[in-house]
Every structure is written in C-alpha cells, then in structure tokens.
C-alpha cells in the first residue's frame, strides 16, 4: 500500500550523498562549538540540530529506521541543549560528538551494503548516561515584546528572548519594507547583518507600505552599546525600534535637559581611570600570581597534614576557613592579573583595515572592509603575534577572493566587494571571522588537486573538511592551485603561526558567493620563555626561569667532588652531566675543545648539563604530553619552535632529580 521506498532502493545513493553531507555539516558545527560551553552560538547549535533532524527525516523516508531512531535520540538531546533544558557543558558536547560518531558509523554500514543497520541499544541510553545532572529547568522571563509579536513567537524564539534578557542583551525590531523584485537580497543582507551584530532570533511578517512590496520584521538580540542606528542603516531598514536596551539602562533622550544630578552621575564614567602600565610590570604581576598559586598548593597540603591530628577543633576550623578564603582570592588573582594584558582588538583591526585599503588599491580591487566587535578584548601579546597571519588572510581575501569590478558586474554582483570581519569572544577563546563575498573555493577542486599532487593518496578517504587540505604544507607548493583560487599559497604558514599560538583556522566556502575564514585563538596567551638546545639530534626546551646561565667549558674546568664530576659555578660546585647520556641519546661523535653547558636550577638544586649546542631563547606554547604516552618522565610535552621544528619540553625538577640520583649512585659504587 505504501509508496515508501524499500531500503537499498533507488534512493540509497541519494540517501548516502545526503546523509554524508548532513553528517559533515554536523561535525563542522560541533567542531565550531568546541570549548564554547555556557553560551554556545545559537545559530551553530541550531544548524547542528537541523542537520541531525534532516538526517532523521531522510533516513525515515527511505525506511532506515535504525538510523532514524539514533538520529531521533541525538536530536532530542540537541533540542534540549538549544532550548536550555540541558546545560551546554563539555560533557554535553562530548555526548553529542559520541552520537555523531555512532550515526556516521551507521551510515558507513549502509554505504558498505548493509540493508538496515541499527545500534545494539538505543542511543538515548548512552547519551543519558553521560548527562546525569546536566538537566535543568529553564526559567521563563516576563515578555517585553508587543503582544501581537509575542503571540506568534515559537517556543524556541521565546527561549532565546529570555536568554537575551538573562545575558543583559538589548532587543530590537528591525523593520524592512522591500521591493518585490529584490526582496530576497534585501532580506538576506538584513539577516546577515543582524546575525553579525548579534543574534537574529526570528523573522516575522511586517506591514508593507504598498501591497506590491514585501515587509519583514527581524527580532534581534544585541550586545549592550551596539549602535542600533548604524545597524539599521546596514540592514536597509525602514525603522529600528529598541524593545529593551541592553546592560545598563537606556540613556535619557538628548533633548532632555541634563540636571546637575545626572551630570554628576555621568562624571565617573567620563573620568573612568585609565593607567598606562608597561607590559613588563604586568608580566611580573602575572608571574607573581602564578608563584602565589603554587605556594598556596604547598600550603594547603602542609596545612592538611598539620591539622589532621590537631586537638583544638575551633582552631582547626578557623585555619580551614582562612585557607578557603585565601584559596578563593588567589584563584581570582591569576585571571585578574592576566586581564591587565587585555586590550581592545581594535588596535589590531585598524592595522588590518589600513593594510586592506593599501592592498585593494595595489590590486585594482574595489572593496569595503567592515569590522564588527572591535571592543572585544584580546591579549596584547597575542594581538601582536596575530598581526602577521591575519594580514595574510586579509590580503588573500582581496587577492583571490574578491573579483575585479568588471568580473563582479558580469557575475551579477555589486561592483564593490566586501570583506567582513567579526570578532567575538567564545568561552575562553576569541574568534575572528573573515567573510568575503568573492568567488569562493570549489571543494571538489581542492580534493582533486590534493589527489593529483599526491598530498592525498587515491586510497585515503576524503577528509571530513576538505578545506583543511589548504593548510597542509604540501598544498601551498602545488603550482596549479592558483588556477582555481590560489588559496593554498602560503596558507600553511598561517596555520603554523596560529598553531604556535594555540589557535586554529577553518574555512567554509560557497563557490560563486564567498569564503569565510574562521580563526580561533585563546583569549590569553601563556607563552613560556624557553631555552632551546640540541642534543643527540633532538631539540629540547628548558623553561627560561630555570636556566641560570649558558657557558663554554673545557674538560679541565671540571673537578671531582666525592667522585662526581662537578663544574664550578660562582662559589659553588654543581654536578655536571652529559644530557645525551642522561636521556639515553646517541653521544655526538668527535667531541673536541670546549663544550656548550647549560646551568639549570629548580630552587633547591642546581646542575650543569653538557649539550651539543644552544639554539636560542624563544617564547613557546608548550603542549603537555599525556601520561599514557610512555617516555622518560623528564619529558613533559612538546612545542613548535619557529621554522616548524618540534622541541621536547624538559621538566627541570625531574631532570635535576635524575642527576642527583645518579650522582648518589656513583658515590655509593
């Protein structure tokens, strides 16, 4: 009776193509949401929800109930997240990831010819198990919207209105009155501008001035202090009405006579103190805060031991309370000290803007550079480090993205191109999104090129994100790349520079309509000044604060103290060890003459280490290596050094402990 298709019928090929596309979309969304707990980007959560919802739909339509069921369970969880019923924690995100993995393996089984694959158990059970305690009751908010609009809100829109109030965001209504012939462009522009400035909660019908025109009304949540008039202009709005101001109360209208009282109230804001502090002083404060945190840890351990058997209960209670207080204060101090290094990102974006104008003129391109979120704060050090890679992205967008005026007109686009940069904090990261309205990049062409150049072997599956190929070192040298976009040229350098800062970059693109580069970097950057040495063919990094000095030593500079070779360092003799033999590395052949020595200490002990050579001092972002990776415990992590090489990070404490242990063993022997 049913006209539904049987699995494996003529729809299975379409199903697979569709399912794979949806899964890829979902993975892109969740990747973008990574670490963005607490206040995840609603449009990404929605896109993710929609992708899984659509997957359920197409699976259900072709009768693949096992997949539809699993998608349904994941969709339910996503609905709970977007409706605020599940806390968007990292646990929730990893449960979502797990669900997506399960779905893609099911889809993979269809691809392999299985007729009706299903998971052994309901996915819901697995998801629920990881989300114990993550559920909450959303608190309803009193409505501030006009009644007719309020009545037509969907549950989700209502939830987002409440969420905007909870986060002290402003709410505005953007009214559009558009010509029928071009309404979709006008509506799309207004929607995009609203989303860039804040969150587009919903699109509603408006009242048209003339029945032949199309009227829309956009409900938008905005960060406090957004220039709503400017937004209205960018949207081509007939009118923008503020439903509720964000953050602090709406200022009185300009026509009102300021009384002495309001003037006095305003005064502190104007005179809001700004003190210029040299970066080194801030760095010293950050270091002190770090040391204090370490001392607090040691004090806590000592205190627990000392109090364990203390007979005076009230003294014990007092001590514990005082320590808890200290703990809180010290915990707050570190981030506060780090925040002193934060500066508005405008210092960086204005530099990009100047470069944009120059580059556009040099290339004969006509384009505007539009920046949103210039007030977002970013680490001063990071802002400096980011300038080069971001300049590269801006030039790239002009050079290879935005077409020449003639080509744009021929393609039915406005003569002037546009590159929009949106800067926004996201969890502990800052995200910089560059979107151009240029010619875009053809993903198939990228994959084809990667296969042709051997970057991707024919057997290797296409990566989830083909655009990631653009950042592979081999890709940039592929000559013919420029034929379709030129995007590859030098992008590996951008990726490398960002990786060194603990950041990453992703690309999205629609051929013909534009490309988006999304750069995410940590808001504060904790770079470790490190001394990099070469030993036995390896690069090793020692924290700069543990290095006393580097010197050249001859064999007769050493002396034996209690059977252990030592080096005189000022008025003390420190044990001397060859770093290569200490770490079990091959000794350098043919050593003659003076050798490079690094004297290091950890506060208690000091030792001198013979190395092959000293490479230099760099600020490195050290990535810890998990305990499960077997190795000498003197190696704590790895860091990229300029030039793309990797240095292994040494743990000075463990290194000194080994020197002293072997010295003792030597004496005992």
């Amino acid at each position, binding site marked *: 009776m049913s006209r539904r298709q049987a699995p494996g019928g003529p729809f299975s090929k*379409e199903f697979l193509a569709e399912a794979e596309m949806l899964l890829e979309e979902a993975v892109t969304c969740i990747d973008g949401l990574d670490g963005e707990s607490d206040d995840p980007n609603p449009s990404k959560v929605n896109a993710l929800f929609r992708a899984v919802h659509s997957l359920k739909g197409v699976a259900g339509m072709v009768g693949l109930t096992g997949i539809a069921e699993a998608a349904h369970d994941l969709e339910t969880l996503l609905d709970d997240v977007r409706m605020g019923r599940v806390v968007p924690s990292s646990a929730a995100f990893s449960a979502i990831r797990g669900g997506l993995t399960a779905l893609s393996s099911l889809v993979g089984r269809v691809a392999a010819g299985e007729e009706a694959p299903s998971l052994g158990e309901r996915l819901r059970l697995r998801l629920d198990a990881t989300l114990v305690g993550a559920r909450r009751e959303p608190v309803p908010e009193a409505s501030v919207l006009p009644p007719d609009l309020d009545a037509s809100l969907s549950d989700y829109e209502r939830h987002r209105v409440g969420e905007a109030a909870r986060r002290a965001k402003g709410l505005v209504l953007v009214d559009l009155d558009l010509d029928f012939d071009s309404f979709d462009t006008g509506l799309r522009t207004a929607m995009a501008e609203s989303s860039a400035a804040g969150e587009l909660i919903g699109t509603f019908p408006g009242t048209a001035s003339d029945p032949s025109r199309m009227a829309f009304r956009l409900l938008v949540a905005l960060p406090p202090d957004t220039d709503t008039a400017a937004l209205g202009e960018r949207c081509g709005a007939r009118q923008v009405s503020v439903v509720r101001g964000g953050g602090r109360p709406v200022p009185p209208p300009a026509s009102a006579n300021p009384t002495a009282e309001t003037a006095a109230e305003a005064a502190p804001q104007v005179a809001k103190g700004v003190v210029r502090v040299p970066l080194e002083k801030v760095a010293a404060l950050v270091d002190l805060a770090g040391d204090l945190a370490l001392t607090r840890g040691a004090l806590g351990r000592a205190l627990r031991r000392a109090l364990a058997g203390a007979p005076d209960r009230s003294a014990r209670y007092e001590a514990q309370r005082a320590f808890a207080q200290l703990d809180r204060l010290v915990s707050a101090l570190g981030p506060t000290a780090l925040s002193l290094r934060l500066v508005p990102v405008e210092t960086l974006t204005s530099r990009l803007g100047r470069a944009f104008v120059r580059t556009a003129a040099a290339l004969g391109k006509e384009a505007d550079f539009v920046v949103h979120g210039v007030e977002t704060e970013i680490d001063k050090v990071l802002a400096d480090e980011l300038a080069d890679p971001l300049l590269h992205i801006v030039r790239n967008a002009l050079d290879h993205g935005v077409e020449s005026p003639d080509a744009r007109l021929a393609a039915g686009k406005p003569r002037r191109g546009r590159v929009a940069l949106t800067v926004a904090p996201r969890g502990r990261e800052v995200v910089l999104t560059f979107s151009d309205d240029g010619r875009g990049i053809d993903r198939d062409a990228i994959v084809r090129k990667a296969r042709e150049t051997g970057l991707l072997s024919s057997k290797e599956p296409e990566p989830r994100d083909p655009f990631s190929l653009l950042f592979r070192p081999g890709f940039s040298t592929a000559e013919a790349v420029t034929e379709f976009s030129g995007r590859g040229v030098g992008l590996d350098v951008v990726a490398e520079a960002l990786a060194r800062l603990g950041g990453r970059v992703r690309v999205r693109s629609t051929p013909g309509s534009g490309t988006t580069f999304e750069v995410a970097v940590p808001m504060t950057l904790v770079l470790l000044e490190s001394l990099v040495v070469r030993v036995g063919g390896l690069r090793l990094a020692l924290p700069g604060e543990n290095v006393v000095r580097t010197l050249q030593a001859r064999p007769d500079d050493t002396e034996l103290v209690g059977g252990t070779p030592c080096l005189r360092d000022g008025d003390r003799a420190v044990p001397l060890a060859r770093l290569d033999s200490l770490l079990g590395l091959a000794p350098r052949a043919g050593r003659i003459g003076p050798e490079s020595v690094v004297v290091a200490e950890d506060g208690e002990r000091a030792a001198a280490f013979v190395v092959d050579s000293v490479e230099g001092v760099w600020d490195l972002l050290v990535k810890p290596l998990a305990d499960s990776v077997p190795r000498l415990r003197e190696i704590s992590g790895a860091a990229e050094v300029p030039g793309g090489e990797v240095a292994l990070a040494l743990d000075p404490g463990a290194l000194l402990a080994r020197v002293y242990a072997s010295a003792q063993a030597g004496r005992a022997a």
Partner: protein
Amino acid sequence: MTNPARTRRHVLVVDDSGPARMLIRQALDGWARGNGERLEVVEAENGFEALRELPRTPFDLVLTDVNMPTLSGLELIRMIRARPEQRGLPVVAISTERDAEDAARARAAGADGYLGKPFDAETFDRLLDELLLPSRAPEAS
C-alpha cells in the same frame, strides 16, 4: 474552483532536501492518479524561493518542511498568513515526527495540516482530500 475535477491545481513544495521533495512529489502524483486530478507542482528549496513563487502562481496548496536553514518553515507560514490574498491558502507543515508539540507549534504558526515524516500513503491522501476536495468533505456539502 468552479470545476474541481478538471481544473489543474497548483501545489508548492518547500523543502531543502532534494530527496524529500522527490518523495513528496511522488506522493502527490499518487493522490492525483487516484482522484483523477491534475496537479502542477512547483518546488522551492528554501523560504526565500517560496516567498518569490507565491505571488506568481495561484497556488491551491503549500507543503512546507518545518526545519530549513535561514528562514524556517514556521517563519514562512507566518509570512503566508500575513498576506491578505494568501490567508485562505491551505498550508501543510511537514516535519520529522517528534511529538504532538511539533504539530501544535505548526498549527500555532498558522498551518492547516501537519504531516510527520515518514508519512504513509493513506494519511497523506486523507489530508489532501480534506484540503483540496472540500466539495466531498461532509461539512461542505
């Protein structure tokens, strides 16, 4: 609608999924054959296209997916309902069968009917009978 049996009827199908549009079209063909009706189906991939198509053709029915990017089905229904000349146009919201809540949401936005995916032929045919053949419906005779 003077001669419902012989008039060509126009149906707008809005769904961002190609296979979904194909299945809806197939279901529409089945209904048309069964009732000796002639249907002209126009497809739209998103809400913008749908808004553009709507004034061009005197549609007799709109079938729209609820979950679409940028402009959702519910937003589209709100727009349709706001235009006086389209107020009486029957609209069916199609969504993956979640629960009664989804159907209620669609009705609240102004949908006349609701179909959960996957739908079976009988449910689909019954809904179309109800919306397109008012003369045969008991309350209209």
